[in-house]
């Protein structure tokens, strides 16, 4: 091998050459795998560019490599992302280990099928063994299959075979591959490249087989698939580091996006002791981990005749229906009963039954048919991009599993719970939660799910703390290990120290004391220590709530959600009904208090039966709020007329939701003036707008002269500013109103309003958070409209701060980077200023 010799590589295909740098796939264009060339094929048979032995032909037929007698290794990869075709469109003509001549046909492919179903047909020929080469033809233009293309200089190869292992090999933990197609060319290349960075010899093991981790082809030859368990071993000086790095790389998908929930075992070591998620039900608990996993069921595909299978399916469906009825009757709350009722309805869903029936007619078993039908429909739900529908997919999976178990005769194993259990699962299905002994459960922690998931609903109904959206690492926690669930903060503390547990108890007691304290002082005015008064009003949606709000010290109504008059009915409420409701609420407040009525805020996400609307693909960006009302002006006119009936009974304010354009405000004002004129009113009520669309916040200086007030709806403002659905199971944790971008919009809105002498309120959920109080006061907000039970706490929070301090902290946090940083800064501020007199521990 010491004598340089030249080896010619022939064109494996006819086609148009493309420079490797331009190939739109970084793994190839950066030459991580090796240098070589790219052909956009015009022929459909891939031939051997050199004589040698097939060292690896992928089962899916889209890639193949040949090793010659001197160790030169050439990889050919047909198309980009063709691994996803799983072999369709490719016909292998050779086998692993077979000796081939140069020019021999290796793989036939259907170019039209691939062009229509894969990303690209661009075909790579790469010298993975690393010999330098020269071009024997022009580097661009057309090539003919079989034409000599590259001249390889087979100088003495750098031994990339590992030196004999020194010392003992170290082994990594076993990991489960999360790559949907296993370690195919791309992730394998990334992995091999990383392995080459270590002097230690590194091997990748799959069951009894193993491969030199520095050889791309060897890794590919392992033919790993999704879900395979693998292990890395290394021997040599930097073995430990190699294992650590490669373990992380495998876990993270080797450059491929992998779904986190799929890789239960492939988890990074739990480096931090705190896992974060979203609060689904507030509270805190200390207990032991109980992992709840769904059983995997074996389903055989062929049936024993359509008649038999059909009968079996309908028998199972009937049994499932009966079981659900029993659960409904036994259900402890309405929420649970409703869920099981919905499940019963799914059992009768015609499209589901049709799908299953069609499969049975094709000769499949009842179990297979039912499973396939529910899976397909669940996938459809998930793909629709709505968090709510995605959670309904969980329902479907739950019903699917229930029926499947009945068909297969699998007994449900009752889960034996230890005392003080904190249940951990990817998703908890209603069927799993219903059988639980809630006396033994202290809390829930799940990876999936959001504010509308069952866990959230059931946990809230049971008054138990719950966190959703935790990282998948939580599924690796050992059963019986001790955790501290702090749902309010969205935190799960692993292996908490005694001090933390005691702290939790102390906190709980203090919260209880504080609650009693603020309740006793609810009627005191909300004045800061330096004498600045802030109006604390109530968000309400019924007459009953007004009375409650007044008794808890509410100084008015900052948001009356008028939708309650319109929802759940088949026709619009009459003028008399509307007018008498508004008047009753106004009377309860009295002539000196503010009543802010928000006009109808509905849209495609919560349509009204009597306001037919076309389905919208994205209702939150569709005909909502004022947009809908201006499209149906009579609806708005009628509402104005009814609201104006209570004009003299309280300080009446009318507020328009979802305003984006100045023209919307002007048009609504015109309608209001016309209605007031018709009623002969001398004085118009105050008219303001919600600031919840970023456009309105950014143009607040133009809106301010034309309104009497602004009220910031932080919930919508946050989701529109961050482009994140608040109920999204994975994003909810980030869709935080404390994000500096949202705070900046609030700051500029207040500035614009005050420049024109107008007041600004906040009526979103943020106003109800005590942590936000110093921030909102500091930004200059004049009114906080909060959910009724929290009025005393918010008033107390106002009384604890100095406005000057608030202004200073507000200015500081505007320059922070993230919501977490803002929250942390506010917590520190709170501890440093407010609680020092009360808290001795800190």
């Amino acid at each position, binding site marked *: 091998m010491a004598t340089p010799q030249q080896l010619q590589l022939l064109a494996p295909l006819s086609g*148009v050459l493309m420079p490797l740098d331009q190939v*739109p796939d970084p793994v190839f264009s950066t030459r991580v795998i090796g240098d070589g060339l790219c052909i*956009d094929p*015009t022929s459909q048979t891939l031939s051997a560019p050199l004589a040698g032995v097939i060292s690896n032909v992928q089962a899916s037929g889209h890639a193949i490599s040949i090793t010659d007698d001197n160790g030169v290794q050439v990889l050919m990869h047909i198309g980009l992302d063709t691994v996803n075709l799983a072999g369709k469109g490719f016909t292998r003509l050779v086998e692993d280990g077979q000796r081939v001549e140069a020019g021999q046909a290796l793989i036939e492919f259907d*170019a*039209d099928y691939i*062009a229509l179903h894969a990303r*690209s047909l661009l075909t790579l020929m790469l010298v993975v063994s690393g010999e330098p080469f020269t071009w024997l033809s022009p580097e661009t233009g057309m090539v003919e299959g079989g034409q000599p293309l590259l001249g390889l200089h087979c100088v003495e190869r750098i031994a990339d075979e590992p030196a004999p292992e020194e010392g003992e090999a170290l082994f990594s933990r076993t990991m489960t591959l999360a790559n949907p197609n296993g370690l195919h060319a791309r992730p394998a290349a990334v992995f091999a490249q990383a392995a080459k960075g270590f002097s230690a010899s590194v091997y990748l093991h799959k069951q009894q087989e193993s491969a030199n981790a520095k050889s791309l082809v060897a890794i590919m030859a392992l033919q790993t698939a999704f879900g395979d368990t693998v292990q890395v071993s290394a021997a040599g000086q930097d073995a430990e580091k190699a294992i650590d790095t490669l373990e992380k790389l495998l876990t993270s998908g080797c450059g491929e996006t992998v779904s986190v929930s799929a890789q239960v075992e492939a988890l990074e070591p739990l480096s931090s002791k705190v896992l974060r998620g979203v609060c689904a039900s507030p509270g805190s608990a200390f207990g032991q981990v109980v992992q709840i996993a769904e059983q995997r069921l074996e389903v055989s595909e062929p049936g024993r005749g359509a008649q038999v299978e059909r009968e079996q399916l309908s028998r199972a469906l009937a049994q499932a229906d009966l079981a659900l009825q029993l659960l409904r009757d036994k259900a402890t709350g309405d929420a649970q009963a409703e869920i099981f009722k919905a499940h019963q309805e799914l059992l009768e869903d015609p499209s589901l039954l049709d799908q299953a029936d069609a499969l049975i007619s094709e000769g499949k078993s009842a179990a297979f048919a039912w499973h396939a039908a529910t899976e397909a429909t669940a996938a459809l739900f998930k793909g629709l991009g709505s968090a709510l529908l995605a959670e309904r997919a969980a329902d479907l999976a739950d019903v699917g599993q229930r029926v499947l178990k009945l068909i297969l005769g699998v007994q449900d194993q009752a889960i034996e719970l230890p005392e003080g259990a904190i249940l951990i699962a990817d998703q908890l299905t209603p069927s799993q939660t219903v059988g639980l002994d809630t006396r033994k459960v202290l809390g829930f922690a799940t990876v999936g799910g959001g504010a509308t998931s069952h866990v959230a609903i059931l946990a809230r109904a049971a008054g138990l703390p719950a966190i959703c959206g935790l990282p998948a690492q939580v599924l690796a926690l050992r059963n019986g290990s001790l955790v501290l669930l702090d749902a309010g903060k969205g935190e799960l503390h692993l292996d908490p120290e005694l001090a933390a547990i005691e702290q939790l108890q102390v906190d709980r007691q203090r919260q209880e004391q504080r609650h009693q304290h603020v309740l006793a002082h609810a009627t005191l005015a909300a004045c800061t220590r330096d004498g600045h008064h802030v109006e604390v009003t109530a968000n309400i949606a019924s007459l009953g709530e007004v009375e409650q709000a007044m008794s808890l010290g509410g100084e008015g109504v900052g948001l009356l959600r008028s939708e309650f008059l319109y929802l759940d009915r088949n026709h619009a409420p009459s003028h008399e009904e509307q007018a008498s409701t508004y008047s009753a609420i106004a009377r309860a407040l009295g002539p000196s208090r503010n009543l802010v009525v928000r006009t109808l805020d509905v849209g495609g996400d919560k349509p009204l039966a009597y306001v037919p609307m076309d389905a919208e693909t994205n209702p939150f960006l569709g005909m909502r709020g004022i947009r809908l009302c201006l499209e149906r002006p009579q609806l708005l006119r009628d509402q104005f007329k009814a609201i104006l009936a209570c004009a003299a009974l309280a300080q009446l304010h009318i507020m328009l939701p979802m305003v984006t354009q100045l023209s919307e405000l002007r048009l609504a004002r015109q309608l209001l003036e016309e209605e007031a004129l018709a009623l002969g009113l001398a004085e118009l009520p105050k008219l303001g707008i919600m600031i919840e669309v970023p456009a309105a916040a950014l143009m607040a200086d133009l809106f301010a002269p034309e309104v009497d007030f602004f009220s910031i709806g932080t919930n919508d403002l946050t989701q529109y500013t961050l482009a994140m659905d608040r109920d999204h199971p994975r994003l909810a944790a980030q869709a935080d109103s404390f994000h500096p971008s949202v705070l900046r919009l609030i700051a500029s809105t207040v500035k614009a309003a005050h420049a024109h002498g107008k007041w600004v309120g906040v009526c979103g959920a943020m106003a109800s958070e005590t942590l936000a109080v110093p921030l909102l006061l500091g930004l200059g907000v004049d009114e906080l409209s909060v959910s009724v039970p929290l009025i005393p706490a918010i008033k107390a929070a106002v009384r604890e701060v100095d406005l000057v301090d608030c202004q200073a902290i507000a200015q500081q946090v505007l320059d922070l980077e993230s919501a977490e940083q803002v929250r942390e800064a506010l917590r520190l501020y709170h501890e440093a200023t407010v609680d020092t007199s009360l808290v001795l521990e800190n």
Partner: protein
Amino acid sequence: MFEKMQRAFWKALTPDLVVDEPKVVVPPVAGLAANVVAALGGVDNLKSQKAVALTRVRVELRDVARVDRQALTAAGIPGVMTLDGGVVHLITGLKS
């Protein structure tokens, strides 16, 4: 000719006022230049056409025999792949 020069002159003096003309003439069939369509046997010979696989335009022709390979090469199509059923892939390269 004179007009062109005058325009170029004006363009140089007042770059903001003279709008750049699109460099490519808008083809009669969306996505395919007129000379390519002609080389494929004219619009009448074209049953369907669509961009596929990043670098290709897939056309379905009524009569593959009417394709003029030389004219296609002249029209700047470096590679042509003739498949079954009147399907032809024109390799047009990556769009920049």
